[in-house]
């Protein structure tokens, strides 16, 4: 039996050939993929290590150095310049900034006339803000660890603090300085922003350092707010915090639908200043050694408030709603009558204790928040100062009848009796329109609120109803000169009002 004829031998030969064929294909494929992989690895190494952006920039800078090397010192600088990644590390501030790898000429005064990124830092800031002690991102923001311009700007999804436009860099001043220190030193906009913040009464609704109203969110960390915490659906410009703030100041309801913030009506310049001030409010901790004397002073005042006058306190915490406080006014935005708390109508009836107590505890159920230390952050001293300011223009009662009424007002033991049921009917006819059903308040204050019920004596109520509130929309109800109520009607009304407090309608 020859080999060719043996079927098993033939099969074995077939098998061998098949294996050889497959093996040859595998070998060729292996060679090709190995070469491709090698090329890929090479490309990867090249991409990241051989031609990084910073080294190209540094080569350009070296050329500049050589061009500008007119004297021995210049030549030495050029000779010593080494191509390498450089960085500023400031552990105290949690900063690692590699910006200086490309911005090489920051502190070289000869580089004023060259283009970015080689040019020297404008102004003289670096002279007393050494880059080695402060880094760059503390003022400019951006991603300090990055080594390409694109990533350093930090506009992508992976970084929350994008590079600020140069105009907004002043927000950095506020981290260490008080506003007064930087005024005229390059921090004008920041200082103006802070002035605006206090003058415009932002703290009527927003808390800062524990002081302020409760209608809006606290602003202590507004400047370091994450972009993920904001909704950019209605923001037209780039999706950054600064842009959000600027557009929001122009049109609060347009950017945040349903926002209850009264549009602050800012000029373009004021908008910029306030945006800068907001950006300066960050929750990053700055070591005490970095804070300026002025800031130390401010911090001390915050703990031990304060030398603000009653007038300053009034515009800061009350101004947005009460305006000057002299006249009752209908606020178009809040759709409310706002009482004239500095008008003679109230002041001729209300004692200082009454005023202080109402400021301290607020008016639950109305927009008036409590301002006492536990909530609004104002100390008793400050509230006393406010009361003095509110009283500063009060006129003494003029007519004999008014004087008599005031006397009754001041008598806390005076209790008036009346028919609450009948009073309810009178209330429905005369009062519901403004004060709301059961005293819950609509456009005029809620009478049923417990603080008012507790602090206002019956005499106070009687006088208010009888005389009305001059300078406000509240008319006088007693007698033929008023709305025609008689003494008994007023007593019944008071009885009804008192029943509201007991009923606990709020």
């Amino acid at each position, binding site marked *: 039996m020859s080999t060719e004829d*043996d*079927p*098993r*031998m033939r*099969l*074995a030969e077939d*098998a061998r050939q*098949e*294996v050889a064929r*497959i*093996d040859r294909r*595998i*070998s060729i*494929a*292996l060679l090709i*993929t*190995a070469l*491709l*992989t090698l090329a*890929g*690895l090479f*490309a*990867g*190494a090249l*991409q*990241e*290590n051989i031609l990084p952006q910073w080294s190209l920039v540094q080569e350009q800078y070296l050329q500049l150095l050589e061009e500008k090397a007119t004297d021995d010192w210049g030549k030495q600088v050029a000779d010593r310049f080494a191509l390498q*990644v450089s960085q500023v590390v400031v552990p105290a501030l949690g900063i*690692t900034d*590699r910006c200086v790898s490309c911005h090489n000429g920051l502190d070289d005064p000869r580089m004023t006339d060259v283009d970015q990124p080689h040019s020297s830092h404008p102004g003289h800031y670096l002279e007393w803000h050494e880059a080695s002690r402060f880094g760059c991102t503390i003022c400019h923001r951006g*991603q300090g*660890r*990055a*080594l390409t311009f694109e*990533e350093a700007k930090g506009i992508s*999804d*992976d*970084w*929350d603090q994008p590079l600020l436009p140069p105009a907004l860099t002043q927000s950095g001043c506020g981290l260490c300085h008080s506003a007064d220190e930087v005024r005229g030193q390059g921090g004008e906009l920041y200082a103006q922003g802070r002035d605006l913040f206090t003058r415009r009464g932002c703290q009527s609704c927003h808390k800062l350092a524990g002081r302020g109203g409760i209608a809006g969110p606290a602003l202590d960390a507004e400047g370091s707010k*994450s*972009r*993920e*915490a904001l*909704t*950019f*659906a209605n923001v037209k410009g780039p999706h950054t915090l600064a842009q959000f703030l600027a557009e929001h100041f122009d049109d609060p309801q347009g950017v945040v639908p349903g926002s209850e913030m009264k549009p602050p009506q800012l000029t373009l310049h004021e908008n910029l200043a306030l945006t800068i001030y907001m950006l300066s409010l960050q929750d990053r901790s700055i070591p005490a050694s970095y804070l300026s004397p002025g800031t130390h002073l401010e911090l001390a005042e915050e703990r031990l408030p304060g030398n603000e006058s009653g007038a300053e306190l009034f515009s800061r915490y009350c101004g947005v709603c009460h305006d000057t406080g002299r006249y009752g006014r209908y606020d178009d935005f809040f759709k409310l009558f706002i009482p004239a708390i500095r008008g003679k109508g109230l002041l001729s009836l209300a004692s200082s204790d009454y005023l202080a107590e109402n400021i301290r505890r607020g008016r639950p159920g109305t927009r008036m928040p409590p301002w006492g230390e536990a909530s609004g952050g104002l100390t008793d001293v400050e509230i006393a100062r406010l009361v003095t300011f509110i009283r500063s223009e009060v006129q003494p009662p003029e007519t004999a009848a008014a004087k008599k009424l005031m006397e009754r007002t001041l008598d806390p033991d005076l209790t008036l009796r009346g028919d609450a049921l009948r009073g309810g009917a009178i209330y429905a006819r005369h009062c519901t329109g403004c004060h709301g059903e059961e005293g819950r308040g609509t456009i005029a204050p809620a009478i049923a609120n417990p603080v008012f019920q507790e602090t206002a004596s019956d005499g106070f109520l009687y006088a208010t109803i009888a005389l009305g509130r001059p300078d406000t929309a509240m008319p006088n109800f007693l007698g033929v000169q008023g709305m025609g109520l008689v003494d008994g009607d007023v007593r019944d009304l008071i009885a009804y009002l008192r029943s509201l407090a007991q009923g606990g309608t709020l």
Partner: protein
Amino acid sequence: MKRGLAAFAANLRNLPATVRQSVIRRGSSGSARNSSLAVFGNVFLHLHATRIHRRTLRFTATMGLGMIAASAFGILCVTGLLLMVYYKPSTDLAYDSIKDIVTVVPSGRFVRNIHRFAAHIMVAAVLLHMARVFFAGAYKRGREFNWVVGIVLLILTLGLSFTGYLLPWDQLGYWAITVGSNIAASPRELTDALGITGWFDPGGFQKELLLGASEVGQEALTRFYLLHVVVLPVAMVALLAVHFWRVRKDGGLARPDEIRTRSGEGAPATDSLPTAPAEAPHKTYGLMCVVADRRPATDLDPVDTVPSWPFLLRAELLVFMVTFFACVALSLFWDAPLKTLANAAIPENPAKAPWYFLGLQELVSYSALMGGLVVPALSMLGLGLIPYLDRETADAGHYFAGRPGRRIAWLSALFAALFAVLAVAVPVNFGWLRNWFPDIDQLVIILVNPGTLLTFFYAAWSLIVLWRSGSTRLGAIALFTCFLVGFVILTYVGTSLRGPNWDFYWSQADWPVH
């Protein structure tokens, strides 16, 4: 003395050869014996059989899937080790260290990208490998246990990928792990509904065991880091060794019977053994006696076997190279994701788990307990038991067990796809029990929701197939196909069609602007 010097000189001359011989203890000739020696003389290579069936080399036999997964694991070990050089497992430093790896560490970004893509590839390859092995019926005839080992390896793979997700300490990982840990706490659904959480809270226990605290924080990071770089990889290596070794001990790849005996076909009936081919193994039989089993290569005809060295190893090297190339090429063009620093105050919306868990997250959106624990546990249990409940051996090694199996697979795929789409489409369009009966008991929803219904229908379908065909193999094919198709469709829905608040969107472009 002179003789000593001469000997020394001669030894010096022969140094390369003697060193080589001391390491590789075989001759240099390419004989079959030396090929075999190369394999069983090497502690690593001896996980292979010394000779394999030549069919193993064909692409369609394995499609290289297991080897892709193993290669990806190797790549992950090496790149992971490189990343460990710079990574700092602390909530204060982790994010910055990843940023440093990406920005300044030489090739750091490249290595991190490779690590990420290799992880994706590994998960995908493991799943496909399981499907390949299943449809080839390669879990039969002594391979039952190795199938179970494979299921455990699948779980380890998912665990490795999941624990790695947290390490960059960015928003992506933080919220994915938060979702995951809430799934661990999901038995509370049941205990809450029964009102016994106060004194019996296995969900809370599981979550705290996972996180070491009530929320994702430093303790969780430390645990995940340990699991990711020590516990799971060590378990993985050990089980991989078992997995490979059992492939060899179970007789190599599963083969149809007729292939095993084909060389005998048409052979003249003769008592006398034909002359053995030159490459017939000499030593193998002796070695195999120890095993006292018919399965290893002993029952193979010599003409059908080829030496593992170099044929199989070359093929394996090719698969490795292709895998590595894929990782490298992807890494050149796409960066591994990294979002902003983890922030417990700002939840991601939607907070999505890694992609291979999004099918589960889709089920979890109805009931975390059922979707996140019970259904996957039942699936894993069902998968693990398949080889013990389907004992038919006839079609081992045949893809789909031939024509009827193929038909059942197609039918099951259609059935599974229809019901998976329904399970998503019905709640999206018409709501679920809570919308229809607002006062319904939560227990009912836990038990009756799209996830549990889908599982029920798949199981019912498989039983129908089993009953109608009278074949456990066909029943198994029906069940596995349903599982696979359901997994793919739900994963797609969870990945691409779910947006903020887990609402349905055809495209991410329709998501509300954030």
